[in-house]
């Protein structure tokens, strides 16, 4: 058995597929057919670090013979050159089944940050042809964005940028001299993502210009690039998060060694004005969403009350005070892998509990705050993030709770008494779908859909028994899903 993949060099789904094919090629016979010209193919092999042979298909003879409609398409071929399986597009389950057919271990983890599936692009030979149908001519489809224009200013740059590009805070003018060092080792015209809701192209250069405005240092580009991919991930649904009338704003949670390398702060004042890395990364994301994504607070961003996090919303996890696995490990990444996670969050709601000396007491206080998320009688349509402060964590851990125990305790102890549902109002009509449970002997509707709806992060200073609860926007495949990307 061998695997043949038909690819295009500028197809985002083919690029998504490339590392998985590399993994398969370590011990299975893998080859690919590129529908593009020699230069583009060579560049694709170099940039994607392809470790399997790639042939070209001038005149699309092979593509026509295979009858390919979509790229990528994977063909599993047996010893008699018969096609035994054909798989168009990117699909993790199919990839792992193909890996098994080739006698290879699974290559696609559900938690590696890539989507479960993604449709491909149409095969070149089916595209509308120009007068010159040669593959070289079609390299015009290359995913290079336009170079950013340069604006010559003879007025005060801070005032100009404030008026034209910023939100309501002044920004650092993105001068050519300041933007240039951000681009070191990068291709300025590479399109990293298309940013909802207007789907502007976030080229490396545009990201860098916004990062400069936010006050980022050049090394922040290594975090910003995966962050842009995360915010454009369809599962996160930035289109909805940025346009909703609700309070949600993307909250960034930073994990792993990059915290120390770039100076992300995870202790006291973690949600506020404590570190340049936190504040500028959060601000850079907001400026990109505004200037490239187009969600202006006086226009498409329709939030009724807004969220102070729309200036900057970035924390790092205090992994050092966390006796359990940190968030990115829950999400399937290795502990020493740096990562960024995005959660469509409301502002933090404080939970003070200074008197209780037991895990149960602390978690009960948190459960009562969780019960008010979204609206007190609404259940199941949302998630919540619980940010535990180190002092609370110590109490909870001392009583023998694992992180999963914490999630399950909060799940089982958060509910709304049935007696609250006599008057009509939000969440009342849907109660036939809710689950009835007993909490301390009282009949309640269970607040959350599952223990996993409650995300646990440890952060904050070591003095003060203050944790926080953050509600989410509408969640799941029909709303926004939390996404984690490796850095």
């Amino acid at each position, binding site marked *: 058995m061998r695997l043949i993949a038909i690819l295009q060099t500028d197809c985002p789904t083919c690029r998504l597929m490339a590392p998985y094919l590399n993994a398969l090629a370590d011990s299975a016979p893998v080859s690919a057919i590129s529908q593009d010209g020699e230069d583009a193919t060579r560049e694709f092999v170099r940039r994607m670090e392809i470790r399997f042979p790639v042939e070209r298909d001038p005149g699309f003879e092979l593509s026509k013979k295979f009858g390919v409609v979509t790229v990528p398409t994977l063909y599993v071929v047996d010893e008699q050159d018969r096609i035994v399986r054909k798989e168009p597009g990117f699909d993790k389950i199919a990839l792992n089944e193909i890996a098994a057919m080739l006698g290879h271990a699974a290559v696609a983890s559900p938690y590696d940050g890539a989507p479960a599936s993604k449709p491909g692009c149409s095969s070149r030979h089916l595209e509308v042809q120009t007068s010159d149908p040669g593959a070289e001519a079609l390299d015009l489809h290359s995913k290079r964005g336009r170079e950013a224009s340069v604006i010559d*200013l003879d007025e005060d740059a801070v005032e100009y940028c404030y008026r034209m590009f910023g939100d309501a805070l002044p920004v650092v003018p993105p001068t050519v001299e300041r933007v240039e060092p951000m681009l070191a080792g990068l291709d300025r015209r590479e399109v990293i993502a298309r940013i909802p809701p207007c789907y*502007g192209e976030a080229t490396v250069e*545009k990201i860098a210009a916004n990062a400069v405005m936010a006050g980022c240092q050049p090394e922040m580009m290594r975090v910003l690039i995966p962050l842009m991919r995360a915010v454009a991930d369809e599962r996160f649904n930035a289109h909805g998060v940025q346009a909703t009338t609700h309070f949600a704003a993307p909250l960034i949670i930073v994990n792993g060694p990059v915290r120390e390398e770039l100076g992300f702060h995870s202790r006291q004042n973690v949600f506020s004005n404590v570190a340049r890395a936190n504040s500028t990364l959060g601000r850079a994301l907001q400026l990109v969403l505004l200037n490239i*994504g187009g969600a202006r607070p006086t226009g498409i961003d329709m939030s009724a009350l807004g969220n102070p996090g729309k200036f900057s919303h970035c924390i790092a996890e205090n992994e050092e005070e966390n006796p359990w696995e940190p968030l990115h490990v829950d999400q399937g990444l290795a502990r020493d892998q740096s990562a960024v996670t995005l959660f469509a969050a409301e502002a933090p709601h404080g939970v003070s509990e200074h008197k209780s000396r037991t895990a149960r007491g602390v978690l009960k206080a948190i459960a009562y705050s969780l019960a008010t998320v979204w609206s007190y009688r609404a259940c199941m349509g949302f998630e919540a993030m619980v940010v535990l402060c180190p002092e609370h964590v110590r109490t909870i851990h001392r009583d023998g709770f694992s992180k999963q125990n914490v999630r399950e305790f909060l799940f089982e102890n958060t509910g709304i008494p049935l007696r609250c549902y006599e008057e009509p109002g939000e969440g009342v009509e849907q109660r036939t779908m809710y689950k009835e449970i007993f909490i301390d002997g009282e009949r309640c509707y269970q607040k959350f859909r599952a223990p996993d709806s409650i995300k646990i992060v440890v952060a904050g200073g070591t003095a003060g028994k203050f944790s926080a609860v953050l509600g989410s926007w509408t969640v799941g495949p*029909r709303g926004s899903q939390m996404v984690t990307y490796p850095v």
Partner: protein
Amino acid sequence: MRIVNPMNEAILEAANPALRLTTLRGKTIALLDISKPGGSVFLDRIEQRLRTEHGVTTVIREMKPTFAKPAPAEVLQKIRAADAVIEALAD
């Protein structure tokens, strides 16, 4: 001072609004429910009035699977046949 333009520079092509209908009589009207609570109640009443008071002959009822995301292509395809669309937004 020279600054790098940080904005989306894609040129958006302006589209003319569709011609307004001069009558509803004999027309096909699509009613799009974005799946927010109450949308169906509003559109049921609109449908009834379009048929009984305005002589609309055909009503296409379509629903987005979620209000939180853009309408999928198949929903847009189905309402394309209509002379006009009424969309029920919000709660």
